[in-house]
């Protein structure tokens, strides 16, 4: 996003709306004007959609490659070209009763880089994907992050995208339940080497007895599952 300084009156109304604090008032020919710090802006579009500018000075410039990635991952009102849905991820467990994507005996793992609200460079995402790739995890083919990878075996991303910043991007994969512990321990280690945060999701099929096998493994690795969950209630069918 950008602000037309000839039109802006420097009222500052837009400042609190920016999801990543990228808007500030700067000196412009002796008066204050709104300015979007381009390195930090994730192109989420909130400042524009909020219709907060009394002068309509906020605008979306033409976004070339690779900056366009910021919008694809950060603005859920744009459809991602890989998934054909808005936002960063896939259908994951939401339609698992129909797709059978996550099978019994497997754990579904999603590492939501930059969430909640901190944002992440794709360089930080690469640190995590490369650490996971060493374990031989198979990344989710429908997740848009995969399209940015040079090599799934190493988790390396294309060099030209590394400095792009997004509100969130998800590293998504499933792994056999007996390998989950290794994955969680690697995530714990790599979390100390990134300059952002990630929210961690762990999914599994519910056992015949109602058990959720991932919980025990998570607890053994020192994680505390939150009390609120997401449950696919099993009403879908092919």
């Amino acid at each position: 996003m950008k602000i037309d300084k000839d039109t802006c009156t420097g009222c500052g109304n837009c400042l609190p709306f920016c999801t990543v604090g990228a808007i500030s008032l700067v000196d412009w020919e002796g008066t204050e004007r709104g300015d979007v710090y381009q390195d930090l802006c994730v192109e989420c579009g909130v400042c524009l959609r909020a219709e907060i500018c009394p002068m309509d000075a906020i605008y979306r410039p033409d976004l070339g490659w690779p900056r366009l990635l910021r919008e694809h991952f950060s603005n859920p009102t744009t459809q991602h070209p890989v998934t054909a849905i808005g936002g960063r991820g896939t259908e994951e467990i939401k339609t698992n009763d129909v797709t059978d994507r996550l099978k019994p005996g497997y754990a579904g793992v999603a590492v939501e880089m930059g969430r909640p609200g901190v944002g992440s460079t794709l360089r930080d995402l690469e640190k995590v994907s490369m650490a996971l790739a060493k374990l031989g995890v198979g990344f989710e083919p429908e997740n848009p992050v995969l399209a940015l990878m040079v090599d799934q075996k190493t988790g390396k991303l294309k060099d030209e995208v590394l400095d792009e910043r997004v509100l969130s991007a998800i590293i998504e994969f499933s792994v056999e339940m007996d390998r989950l512990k290794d994955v969680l321990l690697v995530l714990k280690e790599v979390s100390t080497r990134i300059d952002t945060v990630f929210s961690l999701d762990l999914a599994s099929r519910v056992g015949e007895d109602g058990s959720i096998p991932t919980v025990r493994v998570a607890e053994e690795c020192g994680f505390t599952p939150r009390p609120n969950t997401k449950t696919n209630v099993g009403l879908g069918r092919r």
Partner: protein
Amino acid sequence: MTHTLHRRGSVEDLREDFVMLIMPARGFNLQGSEEKMRQIWGVISHYEGRLTNFGSPEIGNSHRTTMDNLKKATHRISHAVFKDRENVKACLKELKDRDFGISVVISGIHEETEKICIEVGLKPHTVEHSLGIHGKTEKLPDENALEITTMCGHALVSPNLVFHLVDELQAGRISHGEAARKLSTMCVCGIFNPYRAEKILRRLTMDV
């Protein structure tokens, strides 16, 4: 797209925060699902007065569209936000009885969602847990702001907007309800819970 999973807050607060998501599966039952999705809005509309928000990322949230629009629109994902388990249960029961064959996901306190499924006669298929936030957590805003901002899983509600509105409330320039609606408008999917946000804002401004 785990946008309804990582809501923060105490167990008691989260007992007033349930999100229902309904979507067909691409490559399986998406094709030809348009009419079913409209009929599903017909079911959800029975609870309209008891919902705190609703919407679809393709169409907008309850502040920008109406239930009637959603009943007519072509869209792929439906969201409804409830503040109590009994209405979640009643709506889920109705969806089960209508047997649309479209996937339904309930986000909320697991203890409650598990019981609701049993009471409705459903066996949960897949469950996803949040294992929390890791890494440079010192970059996060304070927990009070997170309780509000994480109600938009796409992080479109800025912590600075929360702080700004708290200032506005303390100056008497806006009501708690207006502030909660303003925050809720930012969440395009309609999964933000303005009822809960208003309660948190009252707590932050000591107006309880």
